[in-house]
């Protein structure tokens, strides 16, 4: 036995060293493997099942942090949106420096559930008078129907009593556009023979002597044949259901807004504020 051991000490394998090492390692390594997997299993079980007393607290902390971050993201998004809107207003103001205008915030709505009006935080003291045009960089909003000392009231385009002299931007067919009390406006006097397509842009004609020419009113959203005129519905260009800031054109005289390079299917907002979403197409 001793001789065999001595032989084993002396015999050298090419790649694995002396035979006695091969035997020793071969004998011990299975136990090591078993031991290692056992320790790994025990450590895993300890870490994942028994040592969890801090995990719950950690989870709560992360949830709280997550909620706080979500809130911060919402606040930042809201601020970014407001900054975009104000930048658009500022761009528009800069591009029309010769036109007297005033920015105002929407602070209230009508107490009448059927009326589409809004209160602004600027009034007579700021130079606002009845029949002044109210717009946003997206398009026409409405006109001032009452001006008080520090507030004024706007009749929105969607109100049943509202109307604006308009025309189709491409064909230049003129027709007033009025409110219906619903989100879509009505273009009233377009003959059945006139060609109108869905998505056609509608702009102000300036004929009402309130709104300057070529302001975006909306896009054609529905066309039905009628007698004697087509029944055309217009989706307003301005976001009338979520107005926050508007521009009041401080003049009762017909104004000419600076004509900017015409681009197909581009509204005022796109010309002045590239970051703003384009008017929705049906």
């Amino acid at each position, binding site marked *: 036995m001793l001789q065999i051991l001595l032989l084993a000490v002396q015999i050298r394998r090419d790649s694995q060293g002396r035979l006695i090492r091969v035997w020793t390692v071969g004998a011990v390594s299975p136990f090591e493997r078993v031991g290692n997997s056992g320790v790994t299993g025990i450590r895993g079980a300890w870490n994942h099942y028994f040592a969890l007393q801090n995990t719950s607290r950690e989870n709560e902390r992360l949830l709280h942090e997550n909620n706080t971050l979500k809130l911060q993201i919402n606040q930042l998004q809201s601020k970014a949106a407001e900054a975009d809107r104000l930048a658009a207003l500022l761009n528009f103001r800069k591009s029309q420096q010769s036109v007297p205008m005033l920015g105002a915030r929407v602070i209230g*709505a*009508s107490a*009448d*559930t059927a009326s589409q*009006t809004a209160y602004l935080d600027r009034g007579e003291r700021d130079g606002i008078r009845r029949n002044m045009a109210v717009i946003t960089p997206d398009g026409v909003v409405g006109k001032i129907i009452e001006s008080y000392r520090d507030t004024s009231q706007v009749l929105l385009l969607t109100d049943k009593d509202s109307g604006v002299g308009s025309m189709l931007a491409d064909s230049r067919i003129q027709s007033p556009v009025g409110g219906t009390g619903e989100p879509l406006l009505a273009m009233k006097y377009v003959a059945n023979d006139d060609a109108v397509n869905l998505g056609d842009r509608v702009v102000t004609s300036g004929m009402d002597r309130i709104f300057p020419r070529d302001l975006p009113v909306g896009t054609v959203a529905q066309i039905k044949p009628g007698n004697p005129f087509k029944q055309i519905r217009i989706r307003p260009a301005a976001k009338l259901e979520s107005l926050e800031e508007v521009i009041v054109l401080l003049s009762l005289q017909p104004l000419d807004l600076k004509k900017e390079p015409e681009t197909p299917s581009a509204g005022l907002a796109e010309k002045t504020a590239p970051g703003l979403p384009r008017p929705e197409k049906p």
Partner: protein
Amino acid sequence: MNDTYDLRVAETHIEVHQFRGGAIVATTLLALLVQTSLPVYFPKFSIIDLPLLITIYFGLSRRNPSTGLLLGMAIGLLQDSLSGPTVPLGLYGIAKTIIGYLASSIGARLDTEHPAARFALTMVFFGLHQGLIVVTRRLLLAQPETWFTMPLGIAAAVNAVVGVLLFMLLDRLRKK
């Protein structure tokens, strides 16, 4: 001092409810404020006619036709004032005066505390209120106005649901 008392011998189960001091005025003003503010942020809220719900509630609870009539008139005129030139003064005033009178008259004869009764009455009063406005617009103002549309039916149901919940909240303002 009795906070509640029997209205009449034959109707001993009908109680006239008293409210905490200033509750009616504060609730009315708050309703008008909410009515003019909330639609700016939540446009769909404009479907709810809070001043009408307040008129109905206090009419049904006070059960005094004179009080209901005066309260309806005051709320209606305030609503007219806040609605701007598109709504002539008196349009809501007339409608709510009649609703206030009818609500308090019905409240004096029926038990209107059950949510189902409140739901039904609010729906009926909403429809009647709308009818009165249409009649006034057509006869006095010569304005074409449709009698009934599907959105109005939906608005009546929504107002009735909101009314039931609001009335439960307003019950807390009653004196025990």
